[in-house]
């Protein structure tokens, strides 16, 4: 019989004392459990749980005070909000959901502690050893079935001249009247590649263009551009060209107080969809529901209004297929994907929502991740990043586009966006409200 290793995070006030009560009453509880005493179940951050599995735990048990009895008021509400979301993410990448359990045990409930510990241990024991941790050098077979081909939608001919002219005109006016100090837009390089450009004078505005290859989410550059620097004058307002998907990122940034609304002038462009490198419509555009930016100061609608009929469902085909797969297939699929990662952080750097001054996964003293470019570290990084984007990701899918190794990172974000919508009836970026799960952790928790 396999004896699993189980890490239990026990709230110091209720559950740890509950475990003591069980001991004093001479109740039996399995020896598989290694208890870690934490001040509150709200202290158990998702990174800790990911790390525990990463280091070879077969199961993680989180116990806290009953809802309404938290010694810090709402700490257990935190746990109740984030651990189920984390579980769905980890299940999505191939962990059996039974391996992560959150429950409540009060100080007097010794019997309950012993029952939960027994139940959890036997369910994890039945699952056998965890397949999560990968030994360095070991490679998993790729499940061909899941390498789903994307249906190609060819990109229609559109007239971009009118939009280009309108962008240039507006940029010229804004710079000439000194309303803004800089316009962030798109230009075409000598090589013919469309890329971001920063325009500072009315004379340079001729560089600006609009075309079906304007893929970059330019709002990524805003926080650094508008961040006040000690000893320097307040940064002047900046104008930015945005597509509908990009515009949602501005809403999230405003909700997180990264800059003020009056610091950005939004040049919103009505979008017909963006081309991928194969010349077809990009994946994100296939499921996009917005033709016009959510937030703008000037709308550049051009002369055409050819909105491509989109697929109505929110989910990508691959998402549905993955959800229908077994945990083993999902694990195989994701390991083969993460295996290609080189930790270049292009995904994170291209992401408008990844704007921490220093990434938790890049700190020299980080205890949540190793330095190596091995499978465990790569998966930890991607799961942690996906979780940090829960309820914040606006689905611009720049991470996936920026990835030199073509890893479908966007699927993780999309999965969590769907989960958050189901649990909190919230989609990021539609209004200036912070994420119900990462940014705002306190507040009422409704059971059920």
């Amino acid at each position, binding site marked *: 019989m396999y004896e699993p290793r189980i890490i239990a995070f026990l709230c110091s006030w209720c559950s740890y004392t509950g475990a003591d009560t069980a001991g004093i009453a001479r109740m039996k509880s399995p020896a598989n459990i290694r208890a870690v005493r934490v001040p509150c179940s709200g202290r158990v951050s998702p990174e800790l749980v990911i790390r525990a599995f990463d280091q070879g735990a077969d199961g993680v048990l989180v116990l806290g005070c009953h809802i309404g009895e938290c010694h810090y008021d709402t700490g257990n509400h935190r746990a109740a909000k984030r651990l189920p979301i984390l579980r769905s993410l980890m299940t999505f990448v191939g962990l059996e959901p039974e391996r992560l359990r959150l429950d409540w045990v009060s100080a007097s409930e010794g019997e309950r502690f012993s029952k939960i510990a027994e139940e959890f241990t036997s369910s994890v024991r039945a699952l056998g050893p965890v397949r999560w941790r990968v030994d360095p050098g070991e490679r998993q077979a790729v499940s061909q079935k899941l390498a789903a081909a994307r249906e190609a939608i060819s990109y229609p001919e559109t007239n971009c001249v009118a939009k280009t002219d309108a962008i240039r005109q507006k940029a010229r006016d804004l710079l000439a009247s000194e309303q803004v100090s800089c316009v962030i837009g798109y230009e075409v390089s*000598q090589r013919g*590649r469309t890329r*971001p*450009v920063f325009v500072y004078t009315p004379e340079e505005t001729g560089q600006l263009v609009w075309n079906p290859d304007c893929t970059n989410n330019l709002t990524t550059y805003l926080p650094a551009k508008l961040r006040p620097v000690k000893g320097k004058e307040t940064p002047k307002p900046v104008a930015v060209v945005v597509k509908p998907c990009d515009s949602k990122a501005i809403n999230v940034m405003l909700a997180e107080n990264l800059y003020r609304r009056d610091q950005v002038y939004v040049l919103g462009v009505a979008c017909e969809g963006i081309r991928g490198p194969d010349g077809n419509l990009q994946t994100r555009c296939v499921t996009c529901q917005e033709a016009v930016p959510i937030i703008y100061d000037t709308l550049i609608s051009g002369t055409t209004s050819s909105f491509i009929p989109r697929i109505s469902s929110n989910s990508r085909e691959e998402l549905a297929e993955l959800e229908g797969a077994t945990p083993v297939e999902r694990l195989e699929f994701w390991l083969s994907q993460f295996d290609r990662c*080189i930790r270049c952080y292009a995904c994170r750097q291209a992401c408008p929502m990844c704007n921490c001054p220093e990434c938790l996964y890049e700190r020299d003293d980080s205890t949540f991740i*190793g*330095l190596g470019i091995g499978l465990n570290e790569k998966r930890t990084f991607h799961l942690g990043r996906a979780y940090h984007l829960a309820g914040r990701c606006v689905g611009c899918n720049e991470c996936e586009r*920026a990835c*030199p190794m*073509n890893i479908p990172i966007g699927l993780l974000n999309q999965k969590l966006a769907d989960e958050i919508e189901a649990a909190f009836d919230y989609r990021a970026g539609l209004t200036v409200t912070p994420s119900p799960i990462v940014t705002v952790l306190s507040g009422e928790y409704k059971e059920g």
Partner: protein
Amino acid sequence: MSKPAAERKRWLISQVELEAWLDGIANARKLIAPRQVSDIMLYRPVTKSVEIAWREQMPVSTHTNRPVLSVKEIFFPPTERLFTIQKTGQEIHLEETFPDWETVVFGVRPCDARGVKLLDALFLDTNPVDSFYARRRGNTTLIGLACKEMGSTCFCTSVGGAPDDAHDMDIMLYEADGGYLVEAVTEKGRFIIPGGEWKETSTKPQQSTYSGQFPVPEKGKWPEHFNDEYWMKISERCLSCRACAYVCPTCRCFALRDEMLAPGEFERIRCWDACAGENYRRVAGGHKPRAEKGERLRNRFYCKFYYYPEQYGLGAASACTGCGRCIEVCPAGVDITEVLMNLEKPA
């Protein structure tokens, strides 16, 4: 040492003979070749020649000309364990973990082989010799495959290379009528050629099509442009990711750290690092000598065309092989050829 072109022996073989040869190699040694992984091409171990991705078989997307990562990862892997540390009581025991198998890499692009040669200058030719790199290098035979033409981002001819340059290979293959022309470049290469069974020939390989050559500024021109406004301007779009450095055949910065495996058991690992990253070269106290991303991006170009050639005596050669990978992967469109063409233009 590579033999001069006139002294090299050549054979003409068919696709079937080539595959049989590679199958034989895969049986006896570790064979690494371009493989299709998901929808990109990478150098990966193969057990049979049918697993090899030939250029024509790759799906039409951005990454078609060459594997996304260069052969650098075979000699200087993203992460490697240097040794393990075991602590029992007061005693500390170190155990080195040397890589020790014979490897043959097939389908090496000339730009990649040149990249390895350039890395030798640091890892092999300068003391102290890097024993891990040296082991791998000594145990590895490079079988090149000439590119018939240059890709859209390639510029090897501008930095002293060529799509059919056999210099830094052990064996070179050229596509020819009815199969491949095999050329033994070094003695090491000759060793794995089953010469007797093959038809020897005196035909010279057909030259590949060269394209897009442009003048690259000489090494001496770089210092005077160090303080140009240009660097801050072009770096504005840079996202400070490390994609350019990690796909580069000659970027070789690394970080070292001891990590715990189990109580009392540690490993020292070495893994890739890159100057574009925000924390690169941060020192105790938090000071970063290159805090601005313009300074970091400038460093990348200076390292390729000035610092590295200067430090390791490359003469007029630069540390760039013109593979064009950084142009292809940059999510923000930073373009090294544009920098080279614009360096001497007045601002």
